[in-house]
């Protein structure tokens, strides 16, 4: 269910900005409006909806309007036109009192340069949102401590923000955002000011945190790697317009236009695509079948090995043509000749982590779920083809 629905959301900067709306309606470009109406279009008719518990990434280069867009959601910047529906209620139409309540209860924010209050302790920073709501001292300290514990800052509550490292400061920012227990957390380039290594840790921690607290997160970034790593869905912005919205895979594999294509062309696909993307349907055989059937199957489908799986698709092993011939000669069952030690990976394994495994074996790698049920197999050719940028067949159907 959508927790936020954005319709035709537009922000134009300048005097009497409303006059730009009909011009945009007529399809005037951002440049033309800047030149002839002396107005700056920040966000141009953005449309999207965000599901509850989703991590929605808004990505774009600087000047693309992404920071403006996120501020329209909690009206730190007043929209010029359009709607922001939070659980069906239009934020744009809220009175200042309603807006204050919305900001206090429903939507938190984490800032690029942390935005911590330097004159307050870590705890007092985390308490801020509760303090302005008038929550009593004991209760707000309890909840702020919980939030600090959640981000791993227990024991630091009496320090000043400037005594902490960048990564820790942003944890304080995160704790402050979480302490009110909002439904939505806006994160504006929250990790951009951090060192690359710390940044990766924070991304990982955010994902773990998200798994526990199940907040809806709107995450702004200019970094594609970051977007791909943490986003459930990504909206790509250019010149105030959302040019594509999709899952990381959709954006990589089917870029909507040249701009997106150029944006994603430098991405190391091996760190994005997973085994699930390149796997294909395996040729299988039930363990109770005889070697003769196995050989026939191999001949029919032109493969040199078969995967042995029981009723529930539970992977038992693999049988090659040589194994089957031997079984036929020595009158053994498939279960007795099959190779049980076969390389297996999970569907979410990155291609990057598959390379080593694949170079060590002549067999295709089996893709299995947590119950060891066979989902598919990965052959070397499919991996190379995917890395070369060729479209991968949807869901890994038979190539």
């Amino acid at each position, binding site marked *: 269910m959508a927790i936020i629905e954005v319709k035709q959301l537009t922000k134009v900067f300048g005097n009497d900005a409303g006059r730009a709306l009909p011009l945009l309606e007529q399809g005037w470009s951002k440049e033309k409006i800047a030149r002839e109406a002396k107005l700056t279009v920040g966000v141009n008719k953005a449309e999207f909806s965000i599901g509850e518990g989703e991590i929605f990434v808004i990505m774009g280069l600087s000047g693309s309007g992404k920071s403006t867009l996120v501020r329209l959601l909690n009206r730190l910047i007043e929209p010029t036109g359009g709607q922001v529906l939070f659980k069906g209620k239009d934020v744009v139409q809220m009175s200042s009192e309603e*807006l204050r309540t919305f900001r206090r209860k429903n939507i938190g924010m984490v800032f690029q340069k942390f935005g911590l209050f330097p004159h307050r302790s870590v705890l007092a920073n985390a308490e801020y949102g509760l303090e*302005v709501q008038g929550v009593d001292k004991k209760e707000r300290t309890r909840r702020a401590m919980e939030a600090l514990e959640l981000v791993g800052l227990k024991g630091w509550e009496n320090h000043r923000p400037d005594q902490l490292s960048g990564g820790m400061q942003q944890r304080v920012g995160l704790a402050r955002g979480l302490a009110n227990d909002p439904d939505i957390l806006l994160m504006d380039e929250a990790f951009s000011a951090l060192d690359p290594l710390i940044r990766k840790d924070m991304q990982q921690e955010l994902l773990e945190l998200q798994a526990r607290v199940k907040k809806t997160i709107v995450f702004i970034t200019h970094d594609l790697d970051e977007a791909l790593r943490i986003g459930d869905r990504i909206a790509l912005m250019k010149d105030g317009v959302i040019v594509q919205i999709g899952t990381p895979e959709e954006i990589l594999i089917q870029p909507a236009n040249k701009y997106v294509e150029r944006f994603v062309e430098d991405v190391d696909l091996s760190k994005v695509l997973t085994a699930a993307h390149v796997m294909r349907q395996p040729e299988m055989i039930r363990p109770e079948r005889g070697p003769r059937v196995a050989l026939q199957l191999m001949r029919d489908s032109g493969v040199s090995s078969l995967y042995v799986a029981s009723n529930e698709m539970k992977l038992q092993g693999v049988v090659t043509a040589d194994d089957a011939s031997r079984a036929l000669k020595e009158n053994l069952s498939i279960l007795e000749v099959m190779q049980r030690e076969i390389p297996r990976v999970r569907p979410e394994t990155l291609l990057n982590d598959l390379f080593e495994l694949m170079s060590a074996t002549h067999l295709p790698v089996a893709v299995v779920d947590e119950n060891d049920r066979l989902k598919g197999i990965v052959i070397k050719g499919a991996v190379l083809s995917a890395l070369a940028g060729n479209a991968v067949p949807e869901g890994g159907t038979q190539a």
Partner: protein
Amino acid sequence: MNIPKIPIGQGVEWIEDWLMTYFGPVFSFIHMIIGGMVTGIETALTFLPAIVLTIVIAALAYWIGKWRMALFAVVGLLLIDNLGLWAPSMQSLALVLTASVLAVLIGVPVGVLCAQSKTVQNIVTPVLDFMQTMPAFVYLLPAVSFFSLGVVPGVIASIIFAIPPTIRLTNLGIRQVSEELVEAADAFGSTPGQKLFKLQLPIAMPTIMAGINQTIMLSLSMVVISSMIGAQGVGAYVYRAVSQAKTGAGFEAGIAIVIIAILLDRLTQKLFKTKQQN
């Protein structure tokens, strides 16, 4: 061509008369308040013998600025007493403190308003420029006609002359609070009042204190000028020495003012710094 003189002078006098006619009671009320404040502070300062007050101030100086400040306070204040300038110095101090307190009470809120509204800032800034550049003697005259002779018009003149730094630096200090912090306060649903008291004023405090320090110094510089309209105090000693060409007496009174100035300056500066470190 003969352009008639624009009657600015007459206009000002007309306004003066008009204010006198219709706002007489208001001025009397202000006179009463300010007069009361000065007398109260002066009584408090002269209630204790000079030596006791010296010790109190030295103790305060020690608490705020360690022993060097304390030593200076003891030596300086004893010197003032020795020169026979204790009572007039306390009178001047009462004038300065009254003017400073009122200037801060008026100046900080005005500065806050300037910071929150560009319109207010655009109106206030030229007024401040006017107040600071207009020779102080000029507004002694209307001050006298509204508040008669004595210490009260001196306080008023001092406030007018000394208030601009407090207003300007309060405005500046609040405007300097980074955009992101203000956004953070807004994003968590602060009311404007909460934003002001929990964020803007605390962060602007060093800048505001610098303004207050300047205000105190400027109002101290007004004690001699105030003495021309009958404000008693060490300033009157300077004024008298100047008019009678008595270099020695003028120098003695001048030293007393310098000592008070240094004490006020260091104490207010240090008071703030120690507060910040805690």
